[in-house]
């Protein structure tokens, strides 16, 4: 039997069938020739005659022609009917290949479209990645049963705004009392944040340490990555000193060596045995470097010192509401033991962690969704423009028998390819920029939250890309798939778009302008709030002030008098440095809400009003160093020590709130903690914003630290140094001066006061920068949109314009004609944008400062900006229109 297959495959080769298909066809045809050959031989023919006769049935030319028709027929048919699965994938592959070819044929169009979508998708992916960690993923297992208990003043809600502290802590004995409420809590754990120093090799480094009860880690579901957790027998004071390291410290200081377990870490001149390392994923309480067991009996535990953050796990089956009610009913009994009138606040742990980041993220999500919408509108516009110029191609395809569904699918494939390209670019961009984004957001997000790309985020990106591709491709595909068959085929080469298509495109641009305006208005409002906050009267002069923070070692300066003398000596030697005008200590620098706040009593002032004040311990020339004005009386002097009567200085807010109309000088106030509280007011200083620049000033009381020496051992202090020149330039000599007194002293946060102000406004700057970037992107996209649509409009009207010019219209007439069309689009867009802004900017009100969400000046300014940019985008199309050569147009007719 002759080898038919080789011959058949040779004849089929010009068809480029898939290998499987070719093999099938060849086999079937070979079978046919076999049958024919066998029959001929049986009928008495010679093998050669039989072979020739068989091959004659398979005329190569005829076969190829017929098979080509079949292939073509199949492609047209399969997707119209959409029945055969094999054909579906084959045609999908064909569409993808065709789509890539079409995108490559118009590189500028494709690049602009893909980049616009990359920006839109990228921004959404970034925000989603943040949201997925902050809001969607539980930080701890069973987080709905975890709460934080706060011991707040009974009438905390009667306090003026700005006075309310963000967090209230609980004293250790109270924590013990609550942990016995077994019918409410499964377990209760306490943590106390402090900073022991580690003086190992090299520059002394202060480590942030947190004391925790032994049930703290199990309660949060955190298991050490290495070693073990604390045992309850490690809580007594007599137990050996043990420590668990954070993942960060383990890596930075011990090079991630597993042998660290059993080793020693020196904290405050005491050796601690390392028993474990926390997992990298563990985040709590500002991420301390080390945790050590909280030991009853140590001096941090005092009934009057509310310093414990208390975590509790509710009993299974107990709802938050039921637990809150149960706690409220027990509160008076528990508090009664301590003779205190306080109220226990029950805060779900999730809220405690996510805090104020939730509204910000929601607003950002809204902003990026708008950016994506604008990007979609832009790409849809590009596709519509292209659809118009591709009408000829589409008409030919329809004439050849392509169905509408088939065409829509083909056009959708192209927009999906673009959005997929955009998604890939977006992921690459984010991969490159995630460090920057995480840093930018660091001040506004809970610890451990960062922009990261995992499968969930990538899945979201892919889904978003698909949605985007369909969103921006569907309208153009529907529009382009019903071409007017006659016109494009008859008139060679002229690009044309149906008026309906032009209307859709103009509407899309109007939408882009409107949405951009809304983002710009938001940015404008945030920007103006920001500048108002910066221009707020601070109550001190931040220029030329160097600050640093330090914590005298509690073991070496255990004697309070020694501590006071040490701090005094630092003031003396710093003040003696050239270029230094004044230096002084304060327990907490203003603007960060870190000052201790507590209740006070004033001699002769009725007790039934809750009186709260920020309490600051100062030494040296703090007021002069900060340029705080003395309004009445005197500053502290070197005689204000324990050997003399206790004194205090209050600020103007204090006087206005609590001593209205009375002479404050000579009044006695009970400072409330650190020994005998009653002291005499000797001076009044200007009000300082303690919490932040954008909050109201709170009543503040200053006392000399020398007169509260018993508190010092637990406290860190900030030094403020007023210089005549650049404060940063003097930081080295200040360091040296301190290290001459104690070479092991750890100095932290050596910064100028201006830098602190910068840090304090970071929570405002971050949303402003993000919003601003989104608005700039939106503005840019809208400008491209305006340019594209107007440019297309001019191309379409070339004939009309040429005719007008031929009939005697001047260049200025043409100029006006085109400009009028552009202005109409821009004006409608801006009006719609203002309407949208008025309706939506109020969601920003939480981020605004002393400005209405509908501020007319801001809206006017951003409208002008947007209008100008949009008009600039019109420049090229308008100029092109005025240069239309009437002869060229007429010749083309």
């Amino acid at each position, binding site marked *: 039997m002759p080898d038919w297959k080789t011959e058949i495959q040779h004849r089929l080769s010009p068809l480029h069938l898939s290998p499987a298909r070719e093999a*099938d*066809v060849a*086999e*079937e*045809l070979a*079978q*046919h*020739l*076999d*049958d*024919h050959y066998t029959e001929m031989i049986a009928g008495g023919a010679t093998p050669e005659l039989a072979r020739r006769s068989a091959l*004659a*049935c*398979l*005329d*190569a030319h*005829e*076969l190829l022609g*017929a*098979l080509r*028709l*079949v292939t073509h*027929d*199949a492609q047209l*048919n*399969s997707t119209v*009917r959409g*029945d*055969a699965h094999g054909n579906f994938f084959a045609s999908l592959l064909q569409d993808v290949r065709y789509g890539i070819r079409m995108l490559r044929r118009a590189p500028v169009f494709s690049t602009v479209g893909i980049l616009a979508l990359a920006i839109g998708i990228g921004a959404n992916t970034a925000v989603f990645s943040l949201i997925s960690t902050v809001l969607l993923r539980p930080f701890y297992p069973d987080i709905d049963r975890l709460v934080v208990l706060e011991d707040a003043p009974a009438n905390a809600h009667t306090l003026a705004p700005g006075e309310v502290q963000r967090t209230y802590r609980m004293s250790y004995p109270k924590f013990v009392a609550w942990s016995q409420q077994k019918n409410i809590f499964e377990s209760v754990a306490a943590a106390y944040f402090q900073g022991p120093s580690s003086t190992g090799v090299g520059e002394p480094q202060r480590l942030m340490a947190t004391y925790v009860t032994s049930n703290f880690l199990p309660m949060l579901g955190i298991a050490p990555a290495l070693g073990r957790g604390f045992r309850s027998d490690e809580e007594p004071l007599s137990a050996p000193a043990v420590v668990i390291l954070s993942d960060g410290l383990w890596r930075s200081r011990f090079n991630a060596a597993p042998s660290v377990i059993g080793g020693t870490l020196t904290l405050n001149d005491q050796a601690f045995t390392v028993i474990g390392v926390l997992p990298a994923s563990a985040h709590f309480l500002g991420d301390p470097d080390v945790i050590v067991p909280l030991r009853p009996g140590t001096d941090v535990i005092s009934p009057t010192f509310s310093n414990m953050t208390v975590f509790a796990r509710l009993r299974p089956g107990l709802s938050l509401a039921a637990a809150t009610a149960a706690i409220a009913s027990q509160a008076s009994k528990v508090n009664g033991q301590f003779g205190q009138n306080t109220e226990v606040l029950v805060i779900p742990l999730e809220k405690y962690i996510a805090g104020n980041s939730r509204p910000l993220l929601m607003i950002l999500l809204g902003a990026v969704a708008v950016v994506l919408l604008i990007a979609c509108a832009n790409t849809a516009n590009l596709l519509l423009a292209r659809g118009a110029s591709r009408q000829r191609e589409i008409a030919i395809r329809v004439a050849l028998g392509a169905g509408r569904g088939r065409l829509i699918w083909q056009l959708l494939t192209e927009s999906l390819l673009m959005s997929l390209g955009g998604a890939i670019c977006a992921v690459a961009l984010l991969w490159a920029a995630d460090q920057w984004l995480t840093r930018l957001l660091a001040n506004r997000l809970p610890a451990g939250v960062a922009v990261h790309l995992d499968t969930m985020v990538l899945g979201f990106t892919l889904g978003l890309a698909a949605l985007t591709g369909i969103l921006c491709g569907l309208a153009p595909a529907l529009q382009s798939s019903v071409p007017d068959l006659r016109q494009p085929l008859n008139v060679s080469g002229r690009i044309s778009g149906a008026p309906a298509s032009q209307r859709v495109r103009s509407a899309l641009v109007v939408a882009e302008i409107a949405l951009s305006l809304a983002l710009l208005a938001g940015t404008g409002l945030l920007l103006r709030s920001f500048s108002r906050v910066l221009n707020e009267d601070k109550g001190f002069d931040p220029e030329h002030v160097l600050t640093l923070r330090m914590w005298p070692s509690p073991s070496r300066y255990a004697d309070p008098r020694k501590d006071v003398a040490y701090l005094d000596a630092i003031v003396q030697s710093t003040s003696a440095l050239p270029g230094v005008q004044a230096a002084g200590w304060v327990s907490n620098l203003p603007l960060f809400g870190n000052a201790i706040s507590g209740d006070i009593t004033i001699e002769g002032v009725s007790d039934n009003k809750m009186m709260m004040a920020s309490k600051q311990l100062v030494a040296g020339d703090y007021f002069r160093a900060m340029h705080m004005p003395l309004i009445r009386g005197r500053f502290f002097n070197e005689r204000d020590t324990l050997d003399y009567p206790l004194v205090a200085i209050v600020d103007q807010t204090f006087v206005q709130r609590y001593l209205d109309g009375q002479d404050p000088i000579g009044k006695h106030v009970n400072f409330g903690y650190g020994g005998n509280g009653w002291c005499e007011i000797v001076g009044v200083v200007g009000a300082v914003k303690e919490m932040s620049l954008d909050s109201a000033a709170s009543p503040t009381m200053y006392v000399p630290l020398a007169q509260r020496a018993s508190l010092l051992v637990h406290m860190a202090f900030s030094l403020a140094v007023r210089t005549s020149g650049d404060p940063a330039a003097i930081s080295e000599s200040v360091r040296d001066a301190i290290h001459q007194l104690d070479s092991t002293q750890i100095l932290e946060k050596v910064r100028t006061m201006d830098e602190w102000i910068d840090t304090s406004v970071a929570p405002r700057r971050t949303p402003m920068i993000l919003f601003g970037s989104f608005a700039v992107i939106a503005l840019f996209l809208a400008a491209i949109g305006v340019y594209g649509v107007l440019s297309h409009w001019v191309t379409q009207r070339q004939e009309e314009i040429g005719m007008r010019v031929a009939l005697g219209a001047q260049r200025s007439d043409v100029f006006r004609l085109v400009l009028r069309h552009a202005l109409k689009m821009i004006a409608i867009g801006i009006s719609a944008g203002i309407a949208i802004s008025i309706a939506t900017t109020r969601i920003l009100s939480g981020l605004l400062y002393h400005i209405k969400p509908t501020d007319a000046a801001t809206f006017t300014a951003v409208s002008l900006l947007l209008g100008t940019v949009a008009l600039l985008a019109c420049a090229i199309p308008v100029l092109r229109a005025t240069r239309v050569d009437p002869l060229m147009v007429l010749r083309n007719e």
Partner: protein
Amino acid sequence: MEIRSINELKKGSAELLILSLVEDRSRHGYEISRMIDIRSGGDLRLNAASLYPLLYRLENRGWIEGRWVEKPSQRRRRFYRITAAGRKVLNQQRATWRTFVAAVNRITGET
């Protein structure tokens, strides 16, 4: 029945033949070509180069369905059988054909 064009009829006739032959039972390509040859007494012939593309076309349209069938001690063969859609088309084409033949007969005077 309105006849749209003569061309359509000519093209349609080969389709009609194939559909009729696979109406009652499934047949392979060689069998179909032999049946046309035999039943027409040698007057009609469809060679392989025309037959197989036509089969593929009918299959693409969903009118017939091809299936590889293996038989002991033989090479596998592809058998075609009519589908429900094909049966509808066949009935339609038969009617068209009858109208056409009757019309031609009336014109040429044959009965």
